[in-house]
């Protein structure tokens, strides 16, 4: 007589939660698959790995389906082997499931739309992620980000003071640009028409998008505000499948808008944030949202069509294509608005094929950018997207999603495409016509170079990059020291005591992570500011997972002169604020 297999504690919890989470829609999807294989070629993983059937959507779905059939569907209990119903018993089984649901699917929903039976594979793949997360089985990056969102309130662990400082910094930039010394980004104003919520990535890596949005609100004369806390409109619960996290995160934002008596919540360009906050989270949080919610794309389009801002499309003459974020398009129906907006602000718009609901994922969706263990798979599958991009002949790919920005930037670099990624807000802000106030320049001594008196250590193993950064900093008045590997960077930091270190993450010698931690732990260098400039986003964790103060700045390569200078100025201004 065969001995009955024992289930591990985690497996028991997973199966219990499977019973609790199951609803009619998912049960229908789980019983209805006829294994016709029509979904197979709709998945970018399959197209990039044609010889590996384990990437087929139906195959991946069967990993979840077999559990459902074995444990919840009585036909599977009666004839398990006949219908491929299989139980799970050990934590290793759960790890194997993790590899499929996190590592082989971005939940892009393209297969769901190509299934003749209407099986919504993305929905139950997300559910399976949630089951695993509930017992602590998930990629490390997912755990880190989820923890930050639970504990700090945003998924990148941005502290309130850093957020407010960034808003102030952007206000300063705009005061110059708009010629209005009174300008400030409003925070916590009550009874506004619009409460504007953003993605923490904007604070950390791309503050210009905040400034661009603020500039547009200012020029329209909009009555708007940003919250001082609960400002994160992203929601890692969508990726982790954790409805509790998803509901809690969204509820914070909803309650903040109610507290501020805002009439409408406008969300910056973030596909998963928009989908979560606008569409899914009212269900996760069981919260009937009493105000309107809108993507900033729709807001900007309305401003232009109502004549509240004027734009000059000839300021954006490079050929531009548009990448539909899966969450915005396939899950929220936002197809035409971004295109209408682009056609108003660029001279050469080129459609990508396929597009709209049939577009391919950027390959960074579903939280893939935070799961560095799957990076090689992700980049291999990105070939499909790269071919799609290359065929447009565009120089710029615009998108309305921060995940897509990261995913596309990574694949553009990997496949050496001559393109850069931008968001619609950047293009609109560039095209918007600013009626500048005429200011009479006051006579006085010439302004000193902005980096005068500062010493900057540039650590990078690419000679071109070192030369470019060194010239840029020297041209702006800084004294520059150069290092080409980790050991040299550490040595020069000790010798020269620079104000700032720009640190590449992939260098020979001592790893960037080690160098960073040693600098942080060395009392004499404890005040040295660090700005990471890296083309390897998957290596972020080698810095951010260390139990030392995080770097003051972070930039993704490729990066423009303007962004480098802005970030460096910000980091050094922080030094000034600290009293140095």
């Amino acid at each position, binding site marked *: 007589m065969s001995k009955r297999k024992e289930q591990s504690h985690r497996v028991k919890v997973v199966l219990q939660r499977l019973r609790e989470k199951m609803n009619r829609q998912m049960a229908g999807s789980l019983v209805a698959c006829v294994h*016709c294989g*029509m979904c197979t070629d709709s998945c970018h993983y399959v197209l990039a790995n044609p010889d590996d059937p384990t990437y087929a959507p139906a195959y991946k779905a069967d990993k979840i389906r077999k559990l459902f059939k074995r444990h919840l569907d009585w036909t599977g209990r009666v004839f398990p082997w006949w219908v491929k119903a299989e139980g799970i018993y050990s934590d290793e089984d759960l790890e194997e499931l993790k590899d499929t649901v996190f590592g082989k699917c971005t939940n892009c929903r393209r297969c769901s739309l190509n299934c003749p039976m209407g099986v919504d594979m993305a929905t139950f793949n997300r559910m399976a992620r949630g089951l695993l997360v509930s017992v602590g089985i998930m990629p490390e990056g997912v755990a880190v980000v989820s923890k930050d969102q639970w504990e700090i309130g945003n998924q990148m662990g941005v502290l309130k003071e850093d957020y407010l400082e960034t808003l102030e910094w952007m206000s300063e930039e705009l005061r110059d640009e708009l010629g209005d010394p009174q300008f400030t980004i409003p925070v916590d104003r009550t009874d506004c028409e619009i409460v504007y919520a953003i993605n923490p990535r904007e604070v950390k890596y791309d503050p210009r998008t905040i400034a661009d949005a603020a500039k547009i609100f200012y020029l329209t004369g909009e009555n708007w505000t940003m919250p001082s806390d609960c400002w994160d409109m992203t929601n890692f619960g969508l990726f982790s499948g954790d409805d509790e996290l998803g509901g809690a995160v969204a509820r914070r934002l909803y309650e903040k808008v109610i507290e501020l008596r805002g009439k409408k919540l406008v969300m910056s360009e973030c596909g998963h944030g928009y989908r979560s906050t606008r569409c899914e989270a009212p269900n996760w949080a069981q919260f009937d949202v009493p105000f309107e919610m809108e993507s900033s794309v729709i807001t900007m389009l309305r401003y232009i069509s109502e004549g509240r801002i004027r734009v000059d499309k000839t300021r954006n003459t490079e050929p531009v294509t548009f990448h539909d974020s899966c969450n915005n398009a396939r899950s929220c129906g936002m197809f035409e608005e971004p295109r209408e907006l682009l056609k108003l602000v660029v001279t050469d718009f080129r459609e990508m094929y396929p597009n*709209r609901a049939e577009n391919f994922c950027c390959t960074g969706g579903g939280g893939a950018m935070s799961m560095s263990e799957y990076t090689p798979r992700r980049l291999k599958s990105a070939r499909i997207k790269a071919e799609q991009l290359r065929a447009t002949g565009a120089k710029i790919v615009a998108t309305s999603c921060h995940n897509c920005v990261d995913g596309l930037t990574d694949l553009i670099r990997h496949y050496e495409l001559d393109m850069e990624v931008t968001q619609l807000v950047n293009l609109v802000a560039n095209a918007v016509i600013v009626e500048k106030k005429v200011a009479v320049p006051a006579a006085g001594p010439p302004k000193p170079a902005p980096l005068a008196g500062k010493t900057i250590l540039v650590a990078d193993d690419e000679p071109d990059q070192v030369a470019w950064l060194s010239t840029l900093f020297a041209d702006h008045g800084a004294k520059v020291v150069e290092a080409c590997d980790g050991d040299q960077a550490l040595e020069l930091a000790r010798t020269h005591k620079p104000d700032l270190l720009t640190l590449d993450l992939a260098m020979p010698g001592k790893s960037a992570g080690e160098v960073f931690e040693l600098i942080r732990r060395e009392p004499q260098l404890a005040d040295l500011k660090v700005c990471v400039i890296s083309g390897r986003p998957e290596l972020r964790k080698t810095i951010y997972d260390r139990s030392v103060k995080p770097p003051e700045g972070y930039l993704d390569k490729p990066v423009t002169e303007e962004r480098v200078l802005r970030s460096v100025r910000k980091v050094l201004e922080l030094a000034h604020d600290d009293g140095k």
Partner: protein
Amino acid sequence: MSDLLHFAEHRLQEMALAFMFLVYTVRIIWLLRFRAARERQAPTGAPDTSVSSAVLHSWANIAMPWAMESTRKKFFLYLQFVVFHLGVAAAIILSFIIPYGPGLLEHRWVVRLIQGITAAACVVGVMRLARRVANPHMRAISSPDDYFSLGLLVVWLFFAVLAAPNDTSREGPLLAFFLLTAFFLVYVPFSKISHYLYYPFTRYYLGKTLGHRGVYPVRRRPRAV
């Protein structure tokens, strides 16, 4: 007509049908016992999208090969699907015509029509079976039930072709057809062949969800020719 054939055409079919309906009733009750998720979000998408039109679109999806990339790109497979399911429908109709309306089969064209459709479906069934065996992706996702159901349908369609003339002087094909029909009626509720029962459910919920989110009916902009 022998007693056995009469039994197979009437009493056996009635019992098998009753059994199928009983199991299906249990199955539908089982499915309905799962809670239906409540939708709290305000609708998104273009103003001309609505849940009702999306559900209709979703149900009609199978008759619109242009609506999905998968059916557009694999149009030959879609045609196979159409032929196969028409053949199955014809064979089911035949299983009712023979016992309850045999007069219809006195028209030669009716017999030829049914034979033509079921024969084509039988050939398609063989092709589908070959694809399932030969294609590594199909093999990887196939269960014993997938092979068995398809194989059995091929055999059943083959006997439908032979049974269509309703020639009681040669009872073999008729007997085989009705015994297989009865077997199917009992087996179907436990097999993938039940997908027609789930189709309205899955497509209703997908249509409802995606309609509320403005995704259905699917919008796309093909490359200009």
